[in-house]
């Protein structure tokens, strides 16, 4: 009985705090993305050949965790299969945040373009499905500054 109560409290707390944090994060992501749109990041491997550029490796990473409510919902979803949208938003937030941090670094360098952007996603909480999922997203690329 006690255990059910603890889980219920955690789920409720997770729902309210997690939802608020996620909303705030998405608003800040959208705002910063608008500003950073002037610095395009590309997956292409070939930079334009008409100019000489100074190059620098830039990267951004973020470790992000799901709240208790979402993990609980995902656990239920696992029984029936199908789309787990609570994890989709987690990965979406992680990727966008990592790219923004990479672009921050590129901007400090004074770059106009970021080329050959690669993503790397890894789960740090291991393969144990009872544990809370924690993921790390690392984005890196080459910042180009006109000489």
């Amino acid at each position, binding site marked *: 009985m006690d255990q059910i109560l603890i889980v219920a409290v*955690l789920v409720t*707390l*997770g729902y309210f*705090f*997690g939802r608020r*944090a*996620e909303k705030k*994060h998405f608003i800040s992501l959208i705002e910063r993305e608008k500003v950073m749109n002037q610095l395009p990041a590309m997956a292409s*491997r070939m*930079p334009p*050949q008409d*100019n*000489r*550029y100074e*190059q*620098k*490796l830039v*990267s951004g*990473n*973020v*470790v*992000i*965790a*799901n*709240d*208790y409510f*979402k993990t609980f919902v995902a656990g239920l979803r696992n029984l029936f299969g199908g789309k787990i949208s609570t994890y989709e938003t*987690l990965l979406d937030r992680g990727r966008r*945040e990592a790219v923004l941090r990479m672009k921050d670094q590129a901007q400090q360098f004074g770059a106009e373009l970021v*080329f*050959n952007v*690669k993503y*790397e996603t*890894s*789960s*740090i*909480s*291991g*393969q*144990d499905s009872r*544990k*809370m999922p*924690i993921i*790390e997203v*690392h984005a*890196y*690329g*080459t910042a*180009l500054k006109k*000489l």
Partner: protein
Amino acid sequence: MLISNLEFMTGRKVTKHLGLVQGSSVRAKHAGRDIMSGIKNMFGGELTAYTELLQESREEATERMIEQARSVGANAVLNVRFSTSSITAGAAEIYVYGTAVILDGDD
């Protein structure tokens, strides 16, 4: 030392290829700052302590790669790739590798 994940430096020629150089670093997840992260984990969001930990780990791996590149006489490392692998639930390995080259011109 110039580091890039493109396969060339714009406007400069590779005069000599010196082969693969690499660096790695293994760090444990539970490193003192873990308690706060555990609490934060309940409510979701970013775990700043881990972000920094992995950032430092990556810097160290890169530093080791650069050291190796220097010892073979390179002045740039091109086509750099990162990889992360979880060894156990508690530790992650960061591995970074690239091609050491000598570029013409001065830095």
